[in-house]
């Protein structure tokens, strides 16, 4: 395959679990499946309610180790619900969720998650915030500090260790949240619109850092976004969800180089048509989608 023409692979029905197309990093072929949803649905039953309507249904897909997969879909379609099932916060109503080779029944080790909100604890310094996961895991203090400082350095926050969250700008706080996420040394990252509250420039810099780390450390990530360009810039594959009850209607392979360098990838000729295809799938600009 070449990356000069707008190439994308669409599986009209994304139900088969082994239809994962190879990303640009073809070594993924041999890698084990890290995240897997098999016939998963979720309904939130109110008290005394027997059969609540499903928020998401028939979710079946798998993500290999080292893959970065974006999830897009109309708001309220259940993207966050899907992610919360992956990270063990919600249990699936039907079906199985597997992460790192084990069935998810509660929080799984070596999984980290990051939201649009930075969720920094205002009473802790930035460094202490980055350390919190290690503190929970009872990592010795010296090691904790060393790792936190390394992560802060990596996220361009060296010198801000002793600051409190209120002293930092929104972009810096989200950097700190990223440092905290990476300090967990996770194998699997669940990211729920982590950059959507940032201005365009800060966003691109953070995307660059994230993409670099994910690529270099071969981490697996499921990334929710409503920014179609971001989805194309960062991922190997894009899963498109329908409106509620959400299910995966399309799976698009982003067959473009530079997964570790979103700034370069954004400039490629193949990016535009892919975004166009995503807009079509989400009915962006359609009469009935505009309110």
């Amino acid at each position: 395959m070449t990356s000069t023409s707008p190439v994308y692979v669409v599986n009209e029905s994304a139900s088969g679990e082994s239809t994962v197309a190879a990303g640009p990093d073809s070594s993924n072929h041999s890698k084990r499946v890290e995240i897997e949803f098999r016939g998963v649905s979720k309904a939130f039953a109110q008290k005394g309610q027997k059969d609540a309507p499903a928020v998401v249904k028939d979710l079946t897909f798998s993500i290999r180790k080292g893959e970065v997969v974006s999830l897009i879909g109309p708001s309220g379609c259940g993207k966050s619900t899907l992610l919360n099932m992956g990270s063990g916060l919600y249990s699936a109503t039907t079906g199985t969720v597997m992460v790192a080779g084990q069935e998810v029944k509660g929080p799984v080790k070596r999984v980290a998650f990051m939201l649009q909100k930075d969720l920094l604890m205002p009473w802790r310094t930035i460094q202490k915030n980055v350390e919190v996961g290690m503190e929970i895991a009872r990592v010795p203090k010296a090691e904790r500090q060393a790792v936190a400082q390394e992560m802060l350095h990596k996220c361009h926050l060296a010198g801000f260790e002793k600051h409190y969250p209120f002293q930092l700008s929104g972009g810096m706080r989200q950097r700190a949240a990223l440092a905290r996420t990476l300090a967990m040394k996770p194998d699997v990252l669940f990211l729920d619109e982590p950059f959507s509250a940032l201005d365009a420039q800060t966003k691109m810099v953070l995307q660059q850092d994230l993409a670099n780390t994910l690529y270099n450390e071969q981490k697996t990530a499921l990334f929710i976004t409503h920014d179609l360009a971001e989805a194309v810039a960062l991922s190997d594959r894009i899963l498109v969800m329908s409106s509620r009850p959400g299910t995966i209607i399309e799976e698009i392979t982003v067959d473009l180089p530079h997964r570790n360098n979103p700034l370069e990838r954004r400039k490629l000729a193949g990016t535009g048509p892919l975004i166009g295809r995503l807009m079509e799938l989400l009915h962006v600009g359609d009469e009935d989608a505009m309110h």
Partner: protein
Amino acid sequence: MNYRTIAGSIAILLVFLASWEWGPAAMGMPEYVLPSLSNVWHEFFIMWQHSELLKHTLITAAEVLLGFGIGAFLGLAIGVALGLSPTAEAMLSPYILALQIAPKVAFAPLFVMWLGYTIYPKILVAVLIVFFPVMINVLSAVRAVDPDMVNLIRIMNASRWQIFRLVEFPSAMPALFSGLRIASTLAVIGVTVGELVGGNLGLGYLLVDSEGQGNTAGVFVAIVGLTVIGIVAYAAVVFAEKRVLHYMPKANLATA
């Protein structure tokens, strides 16, 4: 506060003290209705020498301290417990509401009947009156913890205790301190009412004693003494709050 507002405040104080000193005489008010400032000041020295003013002040201060400390501790503990257990809170809420509405100082005579003319009924009134604002504030703060922050550390495999220690308890701190501010002034009210009701201890006792003798200046001395204790208690809470909540942007701390 800038210099202008400080100067303004001092000017108001001076005007107030001056009108206290010369106002009553100018309006032809007798000393036994409104004694002048210098007479109250004079009475202060008399009471210091002959009525053990210092001893009574220290007793009242100790009662306030104990009542505040015990009431705040119980309010914190039970507020946390009920905050973490919605079932218990739902079960108890009608009674909590009833007790909260009940005028706590009305219990003072009852406590005196139970515990005699000692310092204990006074402390008990203070405990009761301090308890509620602290408990209610802590309870709602524990309830209002950001669920996403709890989820964040749940994903990090935090235990129930770690969730409490790392997120729920620290997030309740600002609310705890606003409860403590209110409680510090209420503690003085509780102790005073307890002392007014019975016994021969404390500034409240000196107050009724002076009243019985028609010594209006003595009543004023007692009132000023109680106010000073209240101010010190409030300032101590504000001082502790600034220490503990140093991580908050300055604008979010109430003025003090």
